[in-house]
């Protein structure tokens, strides 16, 4: 609910563990809003919902957020820290070994930009850094808002490979997209949104 405007207007949806769900829909249909809701980033004003066993209405949303990995429209970090420092911050906060950071940067192809200030990275590089952050985070539920936007072709292929890995590892992925997946061997379930409502689960 944003200034009296209902962002979502009727969502009835069950997502299984370790599956890939793709949320599609026209611009302004409510995809981003749905993902934010699932991640506990926005509050539910009415209705009911449970994610990872936590009630969205009056559960502890902080616990939920801790289990969620978020990739937003804007690659989102401390703009004044370098790529590496941002990841190290996440690793330390979650008590992950700091050694993983270099590996994650290498994997998304940012090793040569590790010490560039985040705000100077290009759009696609910022998106890649967001993916590296998720690699360090290793969340149970991946919420990806248009992950393909501004990635180059190599990046998209890499990303599909990553998704396969993640799903095999038992995590759940929900992503919004306008572009189709590259690799067709990923099994996915499509959710179509229209006017804030899920039209075809």
């Amino acid at each position, binding site marked *: 609910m944003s200034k009296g405007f209902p962002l979502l207007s009727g969502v009835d949806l069950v997502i299984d563990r370790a599956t890939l769900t793709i949320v599609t829909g026209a611009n302004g249909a409510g995809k981003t809003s749905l993902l*934010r809701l699932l991640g506990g980033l926005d*509050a539910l004003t009415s209705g009911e919902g449970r994610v990872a066993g936590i009630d969205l209405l009056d559960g502890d949303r902080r616990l939920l*957020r801790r*289990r969620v990995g978020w990739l937003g429209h804007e690659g*989102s*970090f*401390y703009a004044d*820290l370098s790529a590496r420092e941002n990841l190290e911050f*996440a690793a330390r906060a979650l008590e992950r070994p700091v050694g993983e950071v270099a590996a994650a940067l290498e994997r998304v192809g940012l090793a040569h930009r590790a010490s560039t200030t985040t705000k100077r990275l290009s759009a696609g590089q910022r998106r890649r850094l967001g993916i590296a952050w998720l690699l360090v985070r290793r969340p149970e539920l991946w919420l990806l808002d248009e992950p393909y936007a501004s990635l180059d072709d190599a990046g998209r292929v890499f990303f599909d490979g990553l998704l396969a890995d993640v799903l095999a590892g038992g995590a759940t992925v929900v992503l919004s997209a306008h572009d189709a997946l590259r690799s067709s061997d990923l099994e996915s379930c499509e959710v179509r949104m229209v006017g804030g409502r899920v039209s075809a689960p």
Partner: protein
Amino acid sequence: MIRIAWLVATKDLRIEARSRVLLWQVLPFGVIALLLSGLALGPTRAGTSTLGPGLFYLVTLFVALLMINRSQALENASGTRASVATLGLDPAGVFLGKALALTIELWVTGVVLLAGSVLVLHTDLLHSLQALPSILVTLAALSAAGTLYGALTQGGDGPATLLPVLTLPAFAPLLIAGERSFSAALQGGALWQWWVIVVVAFAAYTAVGVLLYGVLEES
């Protein structure tokens, strides 16, 4: 909690060190403001050191507002919020960390401004040094309060300008207490009452912050 506090504090201080805003922008601003305050109140009166403590705290207050603002702006850059929220950091730790970083920055500022007021407003050097402990505690209380109020103004429209409205009334007693004990030090005495106020304020804000910061973040 302590671990998170340390992590957050070092992060804030690193960003500060990187951008040099304190060194190149806030400190010069404070010194110039001190000079101008002296000017605005007229050349004859500025010379008299009785106005010194008041002006010192007034300028410190405005500088503190700038820095609280910056400290919060770091967390609220578009998108940063969502990412950091999913780290699920312990809110008490975040509060302590941000307050700690702010305290250290304000201490640096305070010492520089104290030197400035000795030079510009002719407050007595030795007595100013005696006032230093009470200044440091007052600034720590100001940081705790500022971090808390800063979190209150996050996200809404125009937080930069809402912050002063919220903080100024709360800072008033701190200001009075700080000014009084500084003045007292200048006159060679020390007044325990003012110590009580700043210490109580510091403790109260820290306690409330540790307890309630999570409530603010939640929303």
